[in-house]
């Protein structure tokens, strides 16, 4: 069985995107720090778990799209236990539509014949949740979004999943392989890299594939402007030392008869 996990490298919560004069997205500051999108980390863990349950012969590949820096995120997945890494090199930091990302990744997938593609339910920075289902559509695979539990049925060549629905409900369904699943964060606890895998990752080459040519960005939506999120409440900030703030909070709540 061949599994592909699509991961994204995201800036951490403290690293803010920069805007240009037109207030459009213009990459990140040089000192920004990046990590694997947490939802994708759960997808990597799930792939490794499947390999452990089914057969050690199961191959787990990683693919990520972006500039040079994303290699470190791919490497981290190999340290977790993935077999191979593929870097779709694209050296720009402005907005790239999920429509384009999914085209590039689907093109890559067509050459490799994966039985299962896993990815996170969304990225933590853009939170669109589009790239996964779009890859599936472009490959003609069935897909299920926001999965909390999955199990492969090797005999039937299918996968059973439990999706999270609204207000805590769930439903289970069966998809024929090949399929694409986007996983929700509650599905597992991602492992830490083992020493032996860290050593192995040092000697594992990441295959780079250049995304060149004219991408039809004009066809799709763009982010025109970025601004501070608005406030919908008064947002009084308590000042002073910790104990002064604690006293002020007690006082404010007491005045409202809440305590």
């Amino acid at each position, binding site marked *: 069985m061949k599994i592909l996990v699509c991961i994204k490298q995201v800036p951490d919560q403290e690293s803010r995107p920069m805007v240009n004069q037109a207030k459009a997205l213009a990459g990140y500051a040089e000192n920004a720090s990046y990590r694997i999108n947490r939802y994708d980390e759960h997808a990597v863990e799930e792939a490794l778990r499947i390999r452990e349950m089914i057969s050690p012969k199961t191959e787990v590949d990683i693919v990520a799209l972006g500039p040079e820096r994303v290699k470190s995120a791919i490497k981290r997945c190999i340290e977790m236990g993935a077999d191979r890494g593929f870097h779709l090199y694209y050296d720009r930091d402005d907005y790239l539509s999920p429509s384009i990302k999914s085209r590039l990744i689907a093109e890559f997938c067509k050459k490799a014949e994966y039985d299962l593609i896993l990815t996170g339910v969304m990225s933590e920075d853009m939170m669109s949740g589009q790239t996964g289902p779009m890859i599936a559509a472009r490959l003609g695979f069935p897909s299920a979004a926001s999965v909390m539990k999955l199990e492969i049925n090797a005999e039937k060549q299918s996968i059973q999943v439990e999706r999270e629905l609204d207000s805590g409900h769930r439903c289970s369904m069966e998809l024929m392989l090949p399929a694409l699943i986007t996983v929700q964060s*509650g599905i597992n606890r991602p492992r830490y890299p083992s020493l032996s895998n860290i050593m192995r990752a040092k000697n594992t080459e990441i295959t780079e594939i250049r995304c060149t040519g004219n991408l039809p960005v004009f066809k799709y*939506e763009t982010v025109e402007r970025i601004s501070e999120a608005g406030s919908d409440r*008064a947002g009084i900030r308590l000042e002073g030392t910790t104990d002064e703030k604690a006293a002020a909070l007690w006082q404010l709540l007491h005045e409202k008869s809440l305590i």
Partner: protein
Amino acid sequence: MNHSLRNNSIMIMCEQSGGRILPVTHELIFCASLIAGRYGSRITAVLPGNFAGADSISGADLLIINSPGLAEYTCEGWEKAALLAAEQIMPDLIIIAHTSTGYDYAPRVAAQLEGGCITSVAGIEFTPDGIRYRRSGFYGKLDLLYRAGKPPLVITVLPGAFPTDDQQAEPGTVSYIDAAIDPVLTSNLQFMIPDQSNTELEHAEVIIAAGKGIGKAENLQMIREMASFFNRSAIAGSRVACDNGWIEYNAQVGLTGKKVAPLLYVACGISGSMQHIAGMKDSKTVVSINRDPDAAIFRHSDICIVEELEKFIPEFIREAEKHRT
């Protein structure tokens, strides 16, 4: 005429349960009618399903895609129904609710139509140059304003982002397409309603909610202790707190969890993603404690405290004890 509304046609996908059109559909119609009000666009509401008939709805023409294979939701079936309807309607814009069904199939529809897609839209704006779509990103800290590319554009709209239409508008026409849509790659097995009752949370006047910032299970003790100073209080958690097993899923507040509206909501170490805000925004008073001065939760709070939880909460407990009679 707006360049992104070449056919001046808007398609919405009805949100339904067993053939019954759910109220969120009227929010989608409201959103569509804002655009139609400006550009005179035609609005068609598409209802996939397997039933004999349906009443007309106000504010839109209704197109029923009828097939035995559409008796219940599958991603595959809804995608095919939307594509079939789009062929007929030739929409410039397709509006779908950002629900667990909507975000499952909407991006696929966009990919199949080679259109752009914008999910979890919270608002629309009009400029001389056309429509803009607003959504939240970067951990809820920033607002992103999008413009469409070549039509069609697919958007998913957050439930609650638009009011329901007044349903005073003229009912539209009703038409049917008998289709042979049969999902072959997917089959539903079971619908599960886990025991979600949490009467404590539902009746609480004060909710102390824990997020990623509490860091470890042991810190729940101070959250509980804090709660003990309030009458009719309960403890809740963000998605991360529940995923980590610190808080039970039946006490998760947010878009996929519970919606709460207590007199007082205290968010402890919660960053404030739009998914969480959707579950607590109707609270009377919101207090937030977070060490990140930039945390999105502060934009949705009445009282903001930039502090480490492990320092502040024990201090607050000491303060509250002083006043205890």
